[in-house]
C-alpha cells in the first residue's frame, strides 16, 4: 500500500508554497585542497606527486569506481596525509595552488593560470589538453561516469555513481527514483537545479534511464516547492514528478522506497533488492552537464543554512575550497560562528578546522553562532515515549540508547539497533536531552568490532 507519507518523523514547518533559492557561484579560489577520498568505500590511488604541474580537469587520483580531478591549474604544493574523511578514515589530501607559490616550479603550470571569474566559463575556455584528461567523445556513458568521477549523494552516504549503477544493472530494476530532497531543507540546491537547469537534469535522467532501463522514473521533490519546479517539460511517458510531504527524514532511501514504491526492506537489504535504484538529483544534473559539456564537473553545490544566516543560501564552490573562504563569501566572520556542521542540522558532522576543504560529499553546511549551539546534558530518561512516536523506523530509541549506555550491546542488537538510520528525530524530541544518536552509534560500533569476524554480520551491517 502506498501512503503519502510515513509514520513518525518531524514535520518541517514552512509555508505551503515556497520558491527555490538561486545558486550563487563562488569566485575561483587561489588554492584548493583535494582529498583522495570523497565518497564511501575505497579511497582513490594518487597519480601525482608534490611539485607536479597539473591542469584543471586532470585526473589526479582514481579507483575502479570513480576519479578525482585537479580543480585548479597550478602546481601540487603539498601532498599530505591527515585529512579526516567523514567515515573517520584518514586519507591523503593534495594541495594545488598557483605555480609562483612554490619555489621551484616548472613553467607548464603558468599558462593555465588565468584570472577567470566564472567557473563554467573557465571550464569552457580550457579544453582538455593532456592525454589522461577525459575524452568524452570516445567513451560510452559508463566510461564517462567513471572518468568524470561522479558521486551519488542521495540518502545518507555518498557512493560512486558507477557502483550504484553496476549494482542496479546486476539486479535489474523496475523503478528509478531521482531524489531531489535535501535533508531538513526545503529550499536546497537540488530543487533549484530542477527549476533552473531542467535541461541538464533531464539529460542526466535520460542517460540513466538508457543505462538502467527502468519501468518508471520518479523525481521526488518536497510538495512545498512543487509548483516552483513544475515548469519543466513534463513528459508523462518517461518520468513523473512526485511531491512529498515536508517531513524529516523523508530523504533517506528507506522512506523513499516506502512512500514511492510502498515497500519496506530490512537493513541487510538495499533498495536494489526491491528493484529500486535511488540516485540524487544532483548526480543526474552533473551527469547531464558532463554529457553536454564533455568535461568533468569540478564544483560542488552546497546549501547553507542555520541561525547565523538571514535566509538560506545555495552556493556553488570549486571542490577543495576551504570552509573559511565560503564563510568569507557569505559575509560571515569566523568569530560569528561557533559550530560549523558538514551536512544538515539533524545528521551532519561538525568540523573543527575552517581550513578543511569542501568535497563532492558536501551537500549542506549548517551554521550556528555563539549561544545557538545545543548541549545534550543527558538527564534521566522519563519514559515519555516521544522518541517511540517519532521514530520513522518504528524502533524503541530510548531502549537502544539505554542498552548501549549500559553496555548491553547484544540486547540492543536484539531490538534491531542496526535498523536505526540515525536521523536524529529521537534526540530532537527528547525532553531529557539524551544524546540518543550518539549512544546508538556507540552501540553499533561496539557490536561491529565485537563481531567483525562474522561475514554474515558484516553483510547485515552494510548499511548501518
Amino acid at each position, binding site marked *: 500500500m502506498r501512503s503519502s507519507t510515513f509514520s513518525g518523523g518531524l514535520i518541517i514547518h514552512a509555508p505551503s508554497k515556497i520558491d527555490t533559492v538561486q545558486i550563487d557561484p563562488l569566485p575561483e579560489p587561489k588554492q584548493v585542497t583535494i582529498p583522495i577520498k570523497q565518497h564511501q568505500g575505497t579511497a582513490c590511488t594518487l597519480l601525482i606527486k608534490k611539485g607536479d604541474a597539473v591542469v584543471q580537469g586532470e585526473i589526479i587520483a582514481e579507483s575502479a569506481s570513480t576519479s578525482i580531478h585537479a580543480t585548479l591549474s597550478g602546481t601540487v604544493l603539498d601532498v599530505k596525509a591527515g585529512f579526516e574523511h567523514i567515515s573517520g578514515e584518514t586519507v591523503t589530501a593534495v594541495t594545488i595552488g598557483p605555480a609562483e607559490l612554490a619555489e621551484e616550479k616548472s613553467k607548464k603550470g603558468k599558462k593555465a593560470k588565468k584570472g577567470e571569474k566564472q567557473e563554467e566559463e573557465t571550464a569552457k575556455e580550457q579544453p582538455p589538453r593532456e592525454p589522461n584528461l577525459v575524452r568524452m567523445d570516445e567513451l560510452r556513458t559508463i566510461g564517462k561516469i567513471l572518468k568524470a568521477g561522479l558521486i551519488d549523494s542521495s540518502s545518507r552516504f555518498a557512493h560512486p555513481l558507477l557502483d550504484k549503477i553496476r549494482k542496479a544493472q546486476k539486479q535489474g530494476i523496475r523503478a528509478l527514483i531521482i531524489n531531489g530532497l535535501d535533508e531538513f531543507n526545503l529550499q536546497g540546491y537540488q530543487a533549484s537545479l530542477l527549476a533552473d537547469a531542467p535541461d541538464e537534469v533531464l539529460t542526466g535522467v535520460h542517460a540513466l534511464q538508457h543505462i538502467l532501463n527502468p519501468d518508471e522514473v520518479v523525481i521526488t521533490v518536497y510538495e512545498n516547492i512543487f509548483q516552483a519546479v513544475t515548469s519543466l517539460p513534463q513528459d508523462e511517458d518517461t518520468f513523473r514528478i512526485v511531491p512529498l510531504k515536508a517531513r524529516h527524514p523523508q530523504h533517506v532511501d*528507506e522512506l523513499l522506497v516506502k512512500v514511492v514504491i510502498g515497500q519496506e526492506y*530490512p537493513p541487510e537489504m538495499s533498495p536494489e533488492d526491491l528493484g529500486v535504484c535511488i540516485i540524487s538529483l544532483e548526480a543526474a544534473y552533473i551527469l547531464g552537464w558532463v554529457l553536454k559539456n564533455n568535461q568533468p564537473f569540478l564544483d560542488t553545490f552546497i546549501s547553507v543554512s542555520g541561525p547565523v544566516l538571514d535566509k538560506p543560501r545555495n552556493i556553488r564552490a570549486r571542490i577543495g575550497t576551504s570552509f573559511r573562504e565560503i564563510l568569507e563569501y557569505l559575509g560571515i566572520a569566523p568569530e560569528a560562528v561557533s559550530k560549523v556542521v558538514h551536512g544538515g542540522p539533524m545528521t551532519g558532522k561538525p568540523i573543527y578546522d575552517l581550513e578543511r576543504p569542501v568535497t563532492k560529499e558536501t551537500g549542506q553546511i549548517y551554521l550556528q553562532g555563539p549561544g545557538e*549551539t*545545543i548541549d545534550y546534558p543527558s538527564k534521566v530518561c*522519563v*519514559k515519555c*515515549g516521544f522518541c517511540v512516536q517519532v521514530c520513522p*523506523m518504528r524502533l524503541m530509541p530510548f531502549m537502544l540508547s539505554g542498552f548501549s549506555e549500559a553496555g548491553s550491546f547484544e540486547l540492543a542488537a536484539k531490538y534491531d539497533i542496526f535498523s536505526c538510520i540515525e536521523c536524529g528525530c529521537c534526540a530532537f524530541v527528547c*525532553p531529557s536531552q539524551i544524546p540518543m544518536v550518539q549512544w546508538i552509534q556507540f552501540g553499533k560500533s561496539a557490536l561491529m568490532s565485537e563481531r567483525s569476524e562474522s561475514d554474515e554480520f558484516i553483510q547485515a551491517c552494510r548499511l548501518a
Partner: protein
Amino acid sequence: MNSSKLVVSPSPHIHSGNLVSKIMLDFLVALIPTAAFGVYIFGLGALRVMLIAVISAVAWEALIQKATKRPLTTSDLSAVVSALILALILPPTIPWWLILVATLIMIVLGREVYGGYGNNPFNPVLVAWVVLQMSFPDFMTSWIVPGASPELAPMEVLKQQGPSFAKESFTYSQLLLGQTAGFTGQVSALMLLIGGAFLLWRKAVNWRIPVCYLAGVFLFSGLFWIFSPSSFADPVFHVLAGGTLIAAFFLATDLPSSPVTPEGMVYFGLGAGVLTAIIRMWGAWPFGAFYAVFIMNLATPFLDKTAPEVYGR
C-alpha cells in the same frame, strides 16, 4: 592557523526545546484552575495542604539527593507537580505532620529508591496516597462540607447508600462546580476538564491515556447501567465524581509509570478505566480510580511489549 574554537558534538545539532521542566510547567498551569477553585471552596485549609506538600517534597528531594551524593534535580519541577497533585487528592483537613510523611514516602519510596524521577515503576503520588489510605483511613476521609451537600464524598455515598441515593444527592452541576465534600482535586469536574484540555492542547500528555481511560470508565459503567439503572450509577456520574478526571489527566499520565508505545497507552487507559468502574461497583473501596491507575502501573512493563513492528521486519 589562528581560527576561533569551534564546537564539535554529535548530531542532531538542534533540539525541539521541549524539556521535562517545560512539561512539568504545563502540568502546573493545568492544575491552577483546580487548585484555585479548591481554595475558593474549601478555604485556606486547602492552600495550606498544597504549600506544605510542595515545600516539603522539594526539601525531601534535595535532602536525599544531597545525602546520596547525586546531582540535584529539583529544577525539573517534577517534585513540585507530584506534590501539588498529592495535595489535591488529600483531604483539606489533613494534619501537617501527615503531609510531611506523605511527601517523604512519595519522594523516597516513590522515586528516589529507584534512582530518581524517570525510573519509578509506580506513580509516586499514588504510592504515598495508598500508604496513607491504608494507614490513616480516618484522616483520609475527614472532609470539609461545602453548602448543603451530604457529609460524604460522592463515591462514599454511592458505596454506602446506593446509586439511587447518590443520584438524588448530587446533581451534575454540583459535581461540575464543586458543591460536594471530598478532596480538593475532585470537587470541580469543570476545572479539571479545563486543565486536561490545556494539557492535551499543549501536547504535554499523550491523548491516548486520558481519552481511553475516560472511555473505559464511561463504557464499562454504562454497559451495566443500561441493563440495570437501579443498581448501578450512570456513566456520567462515574466520570464526573470520585476523582476520575484527576486520575485521567494527572495521575494516569505520569510519564515514567505509564507505557511508551501508542498501543500500550490505549490498553493502559482502557484497563485503568475498566478497573476503576469494577473497583467502584464491586470493590470495598470508594476511590477506585486511584487504585485502578496504581494497579495498571504494574502492567506497564508488560504493555510496553506492544512495541510497533520495526521497519522492514
